[in-house]
């Protein structure tokens, strides 16, 4: 296997692209919930802002992050994946996502998780799983009304 092939096991094009140029990488001017997440072991930090439309459906998500390509790409893909979802639905997705990045197994026929599947490669690198889950922990904290989360 070539260097590039080996690298792409983990760093698929979508991760590189989203890590470099995230679509949702800014704070929201108007928002309903926000929380920060930090990983004290590595210094990665993220803040997530969420806006709901009528009821508890997520209409917009923005984030600011200082961290690696994995954590930024994960935050950006998360913002896509939770669009239009209710709180309970989003929390269920959070649990499924965490299970996927820990095991590397993406459930078949789950189109939302398939969008996030490029991140499943981190299961081979246990210390990097937290990079992928950090924005999700921050999102979860925002939905629960706690202001801070840690991926520790």
């Amino acid at each position, binding site marked *: 296997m070539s*260097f*590039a092939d080996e*690298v792409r096991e983990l760093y698929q094009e979508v991760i590189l692209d989203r890590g470099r140029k995230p679509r949702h990488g800014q704070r929201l001017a108007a928002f309903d919930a926000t929380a920060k997440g930090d990983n004290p072991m*590595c*210094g*990665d930090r993220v803040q997530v802002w969420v806006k709901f439309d009528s009821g508890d459906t997520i209409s917009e998500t923005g984030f600011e992050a200082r961290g690696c*390509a994995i954590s930024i790409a994960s935050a950006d893909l998360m913002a896509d994946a939770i669009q239009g979802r209710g709180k309970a639905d989003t929390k269920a997705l959070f649990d499924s996502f965490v299970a996927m990045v820990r095991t590397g197994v993406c459930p078949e026929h789950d189109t939302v998780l398939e969008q996030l599947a490029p991140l499943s490669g981190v299961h081979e*690198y246990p210390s990097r799983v937290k990079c992928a889950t950090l924005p999700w922990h921050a999102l979860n904290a925002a939905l629960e009304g706690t202001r801070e989360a840690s991926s520790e």
Partner: protein
Amino acid sequence: MNVDDIRKDFPILGQTIRGKPLVFLDSAASAQKPRAVIDAMRNAMETQYANVHRGLHWMSERTTEAYEACRDAAAALMNAESREEIVFTGNSTGALNLVAHSYGRGVLKPGQAVVISGMEHHSNIVPWQMARDAHGIELRVAPITDSGELDMTAFEALLQDGKVGLVSMTHMSNVLGTYTPAARIAALAHQYGAKVLFDGSQAIVHRAIDVRALDADFYCWTGHKLYGPTGIGVLYAKREMLEQMPPFLGGGDMISSVSYEKSTWARVPHKFEAGTPAILEGIGLKAAIDYVQAIGFEAMAAHEASLTEHAMARLSQIEGIRIFGQAQDRGGVISFALDKAHSHDVATLLDRQGIAVRAGHHCAEPLMRRLGVDSTARASFGVYTTHAEIDALADTLTRVREFFA
């Protein structure tokens, strides 16, 4: 010294990682173990083991001799005046906490100051903050220059009011690779009436340490970075220091006699060694000290200098790299960052090629802030590191940079 022969002494170096030969460039975090250390510990467990310092039976006496031989070896390694000046701790952190608690709170007076440098590991920051908050000691930080060296003028200025009771400073930065001028630091500290401690966790791996030539009042290091086991560290202290310090931890082994009204302390160094010590680790560390002494520090220092020179030359050629620390006197610990890739991504891509480096803040967050970064990647060398491994690092970093460009 012949590196190929030395590598044969370290069984783990034959491992493959993700299908690639292991290139272990993380010795500054913890070094690999030679066969001699592994065998010494296994032999003790298989043939000669009991608790030490108390048994009247054959096994205990033999084990005590084997364990206490480590104290002699450590004393000789550092050119201490006597074996009673060697206190065993759990690691360097344990040694620093011992001094911060026992000397910081027990001997220093509220209002006196402790000076550390701007390139300390958290283990030489946090214990002093705890002593400050509990005992009213002032904590002063001597800044570093942009090249990553101690600012000697600013350091001396911190000493001039005569309030400084102790200077506690690294002898080699675990981030920048900078060796601090320990003899000059000690002379200045003493000139202003302060005692001096060196954290030699990194330095002792590469250079012969002579505590009497340095005139160090305290010098600490940890076994696992010197090719020994985890769980044992060494605190050297001049006998006069140990005599005036109160005990740190209380318990068995550190007492002379105990009644409900009053206890009296064992003589130094045992006054500072409460509880059953790290017996097997002491036996392993003795083997590690014998191992490095047999190679010789002159040869190891020359090897480190050659590796460092080669690495600085190769790494500095990589486009977009920033190497932290350009000290005149620097050794085989090199921190760097690539402009297009986060250090964690760099470390993961190197790992995919079997190359182990550390990435993160290296337990030195204040220094990271001084450098203006959140994290760096760090390559560090041991006695078994080869020039070819540094070439592999440099070649792979070039490809990583291209991949993220």
